């Protein structure tokens, strides 16, 4: 069955269909054709084709048996050591079906695994190397411990360029008989921030309003999707109303279920738009960095964010 979700419907199923990442595709394709791949580590931002490439490798290797020989886990959802000890090991220890002598485990967002789980993984990768290959994906390879990196062939995925995204949009526009202005294409590219999945999702949700896509249409969808409210929080804080800022922040975090780190990220971007002196902007950025550090170190992001908001209150007073 063909999926109606365009990110699936238009997911490339052959190496040559993938846009961008030309060098990586070439190397991975030749490894796949030799029917013997090492452990692979795909590093790079979201929506650049890591999962897609992993799926293609698997389908090319195993053909119709791919589902039996393939396990996909997302480490950001199951990040503890038990995943490695149970799911991974259980799958890895049995033999593959078909003529390829190994199975493949795709561990998505492997950088989210706890260090302990990564340590456990390291031995598993070696012990079961005859029956199992790993494809790991991560956003930052630095968050994957060295011993694992050294066991993998590393591929760094780049953000998709404008021409790549345009290609994807054109393909879908043709396939779905839509029309789109070049400005709207540009706007979707800007809004997608080089993330192909986000680009396609934007396109699909826009097209559900009307099949002729214009900038107006895209901008309404985009403004809905942005966590714009962080600005309001900072406005309250800078104007001295800490209580309101605090309430609003908590409200957003609950409603949008966004993490403390995401809030810090949004705050950091928003600093440049604040009506304060340059040296205060620098000071606030420093505070923001410290807050992000403390979120990682601490246990309760909301407390850290409140402390940060209190600095914004001071900034509003010119301090």
């Amino acid at each position, binding site marked *: 069955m063909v999926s109606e*979700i365009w990110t699936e419907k238009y997911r490339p199923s052959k190496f040559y269909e993938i846009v961008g990442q030309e060098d990586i595709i070439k190397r991975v394709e030749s490894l796949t054709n030799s029917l013997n791949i090492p452990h692979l580590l795909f590093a790079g931002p979201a929506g650049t084709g890591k999962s897609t490439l992993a799926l293609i490798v698997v389908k090319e290797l195993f053909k119709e048996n791919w589902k039996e020989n393939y396990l996909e886990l*997302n480490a*950001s959802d199951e990040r503890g050591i038990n995943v490695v000890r149970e799911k991974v090991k259980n799958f890895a220890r049995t033999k593959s079906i078909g003529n390829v002598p190994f199975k493949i485990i795709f561990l*998505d967002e492997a950088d989210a695994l706890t260090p302990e789980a990564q340590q456990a993984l390291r031995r598993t990768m070696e012990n079961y190397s005859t029956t199992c290959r790993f494809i790991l994906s991560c956003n930052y390879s630095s968050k994957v411990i060295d011993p694992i990196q050294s066991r993998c062939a590393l591929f760094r995925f780049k953000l998709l360029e404008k021409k790549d995204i345009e290609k994807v949009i054109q393909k879908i526009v043709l396939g779905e008989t839509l029309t789109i202005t070049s400005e709207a294409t540009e706007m979707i590219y800007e809004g997608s921030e080089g993330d192909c999945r986000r680009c396609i999702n934007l396109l699909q*949700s826009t097209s559900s309003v009307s099949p002729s896509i214009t900038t107006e249409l895209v901008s309404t969808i985009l403004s809905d999707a942005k966590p714009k409210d962080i600005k309001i929080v900072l406005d309250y804080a800078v104007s001295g109303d800490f209580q309101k800022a605090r309430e609003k922040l908590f409200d957003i975090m609950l409603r949008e279920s966004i993490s403390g780190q995401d809030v810090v990220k949004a705050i950091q971007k928003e600093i440049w738009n604040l009506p304060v002196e340059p040296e205060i902007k620098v000071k606030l950025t420093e505070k923001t960095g410290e807050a992000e550090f403390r979120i990682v170190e601490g246990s309760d992001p909301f407390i*850290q964010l409140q*402390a940060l908001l209190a600095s914004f209150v001071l900034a509003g007073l010119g301090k």
Partner: protein
Amino acid sequence: MQWTEKYRPKFFGDIRGQNLAVERIREFARHRGGLKKALILHGPPGTGKTALAYAAANETNSEIFELNASDLRNKEKLNEILRPAIEQKSLTKENKVILVDEVDGISVVDRGGLTQLISLIESTKYPIIITANNIWGKKLSALRRKAELVQLKEIDYKTIKDVMIFILRKEKNFVDNDILTNIAIKAKGDLRAAINDLQIIAGMDEPSDILDERNKETDIFSALRLIFKGKPTNDMLKVFDSVNMPIDEIILWVEENIPTEYQGESLARAYDLLSKVDVFKGRIYKQQYWRFLLYEYIFLSYGIASSKKEAKNLGFTSYKKPDRILKIWLNNLRTAKKKSIAQKYAKHVHVGEKRAMKEFDLIKKVILSNPQIQKELRLSEEEIEYLGNEK
């Protein structure tokens, strides 16, 4: 002998602190055979429901026939035991009162019990008094219509104290006045609990000891007051030792109330220290190095007290109970559907659930754009409804 039994009131005159309820039940007894043949006494434990029923029986020179939660009360049993009771005359007394105690305790094994009780109410010759803690459940709605309702309120602490003094006098015993006050307050309107406590304490050699301990306990409000309004002193370091609350909860209290007391630079300094408290908390979790707890306590008390330049706001501040955890919990309930949708979507399109949650606004639009997708993801009707409402 238990004092609660020994001093159980015999007549309406012995009952304390429930004048209104006594009036109502007197009225009910006077108009016997009136509109409703049953009376429900409801109210919290230890407020005198059963006592009132017994007093009513004594006042009217009635025999009392009691059925309580310790008896099996299904349909057959009620028929077998209660039916004869409502039909036959008392052998010993002029009248008869039927008491069905703790009716909210009728449970699933008492199948058909409530229905049977209602039909017995219709045919009874004698008044039926029913007691319950809570009558507002759905289970008892039919019964509520068949009976007069009399609510018993929590007994105020002064009345409780009077009763205790009365008992002590009778027992020729003595307990310190402060302790009595303490028991009375702690009882929160439950006279039976207070009398039980009293009996235990009166029987001890040095009753003051344990209760003194309790007196010393600082509540969170006075601890917060001390920190937010007082000058930092070395004594302050121990302020939370006597607060009977885990430190993680104290942190939430402090967090919630800093902005009610501090502004500007004091606010920033106080939150900075609180943030350090949290960092140490995180380090304890990660490294299991519990000595860091010390720093948590120091920053949380002395540190935050020292964050203000001078104590400005010496007036009374009413502190807010932290409700963040509750709100998170409520929100989780609310977003359970969102989560289950994100889960289905994530699995289907090879992304993490976290990412699906994060991009939910966009994903929601995609899912809503085509009913075929909803089918493809096998969304339940409730989930589809949720998405529709979220629009």
